[in-house]
């Protein structure tokens, strides 16, 4: 059965299955860490710089997509995203958080990273579902594109979790978890495209704002602590450029 025929027969199920496949692809982002043995403070800084570049590059893409639907809604959404992360950070600060073997500041940072990436998947799920509405023949192409695009996001999550002692399997697990909102949101967004479309710039902006704020408030300051700043700057910039190129060709 072709994708088009399956989509015609049981559309919601197909959108869900495709969304799930993209979520599983996020777990592949943990794979590079199977080849890294020793993790020094400097390696943590380097991983933070890579994650910062990936996230800033992803934000550029989200903002470009969002402003196409509505400029002020995107920016209003972005400010809400900033406030949401600020609130989450405060809330985590007041509670004792444990993440794997870690506690205290490290655990809070990891929890915040998972929250940020999971929240941003809601908006992406809506984008996937809405795009599915564009035409059945595009479904496979869109799914592959989103799946590949999820891998660096898993890489960003693993780059924050793995150096802090989270196991490889758990890194992959949290990466997949962070993308689960994609299949969950894709289905209603696909079924009720017209109702969801006005919310899209808000959601995309929210995701972009949350990620930019996370980069500025957690990832960068920590990266500068353990490695020379020209190295951090160069690495994050080149990663950002690679991410932009990657998004352009997918």
């Amino acid at each position, binding site marked *: 059965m072709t994708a088009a025929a399956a989509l015609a027969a049981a559309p919601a199920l197909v959108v869900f299955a495709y969304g799930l496949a993209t979520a599983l692809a996020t777990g592949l982002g943990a794979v590079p860490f199977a080849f890294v043995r020793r993790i020094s403070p400097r390696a943590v800084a380097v991983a933070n710089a890579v994650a*910062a570049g990936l996230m*800033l590059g992803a934000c*550029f893409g989200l*903002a*470009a997509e969002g*402003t196409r639907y509505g*400029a*002020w809604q*995107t*920016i209003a959404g*972005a*400010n809400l995203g*900033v406030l949401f992360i*600020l609130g989450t*950070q405060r809330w985590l600060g007041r509670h004792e958080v444990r993440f794997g073997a870690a506690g205290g500041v490290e655990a809070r940072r990891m929890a915040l990273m998972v929250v940020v990436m999971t929240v941003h998947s809601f908006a992406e799920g809506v984008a996937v579902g809405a795009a599915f509405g564009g035409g059945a023949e595009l479904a496979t192409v869109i799914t592959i594109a989103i799946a590949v695009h999820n891998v660096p996001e898993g890489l960003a999550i693993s780059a924050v979790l793995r150096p802090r002692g989270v196991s490889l399997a758990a890194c992959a697990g949290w990466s997949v978890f962070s993308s689960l909102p994609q299949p969950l949101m894709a289905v209603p967004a696909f079924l009720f495209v017209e109702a969801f479309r006005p919310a899209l710039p808000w959601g995309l902006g929210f995701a972009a*704002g949350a990620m*930019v*704020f996370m980069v*500025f*408030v*957690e990832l*960068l*300051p920590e990266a*500068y602590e353990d490695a020379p*700043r*020209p190295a*951090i*700057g*160069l690495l*994050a*910039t*080149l990663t*950002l*450029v*690679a991410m*932009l*190129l990657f998004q*352009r*060709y997918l």
Partner: protein
Amino acid sequence: MDLTLGLALTVLAWSALSAAAGALGVLPPAAFGRGGRALPTAWIGWANALAAGMMLAAAYLLAEAGLAGPALPAALGAALGALAIFASHAVPRPAAPAPAERPRDRLARGRTSVLTGALHSASEGVAIGVAMAVDLRFGIFLALAIAVHNIPEATVLCAALTGRGRRLPAAAALAVAADVPQVPLAVGAFALASAAPAALPWVQGFAVGALVNLVLTELMPDSYREAGHTSIALVASVAMGIVVLLRGLAP
């Protein structure tokens, strides 16, 4: 021909204005006296965070324009721009002067910090010129963003130089002079991008890479040292949003 000349003069005027903004930055050290020890510094962090947000937004808008065209030359140009900023940091950064340092060494290190400032200013000039070639209003905006960054930069440089034994008028003059290279480079980059449209993706990319790396290597780490992480992150991300919004609303 006359039109191009007029545009080049506009570039000259705005980049000169942006460079001259550094003069405002030497006022606080002048008011607070030698060494600038008693200087309140949180505003330096916020000003740098504001400039960082504006410059990142400018890089985003430039990248969006650049990616619409041939993406590979733009990406290679961006890598070159990032490397140019990296190379300019091969010159050692000014650190707190060691007490036992001889006056002559201190002056030599003061010279290298002026040189570093001049190198950064040069890449900022390239970004202004390229932005002007893409869109005049956009270029003017970027010149203003860089002016916002030039003010605290001159304050820090001036304070560092007086701390190394320079007299205040000389330190103030050097701190402002470090911004001068951005003027000829803005005009040169504008002329190159206008005269050879084939080179536009390259220079566009160069400007993006240089701006992003400048923000990440210099503005952000500097601002974290002067004020709390949360306030810095707020100023930078909200500034970024406002700039993208203004651009989106512009006709």
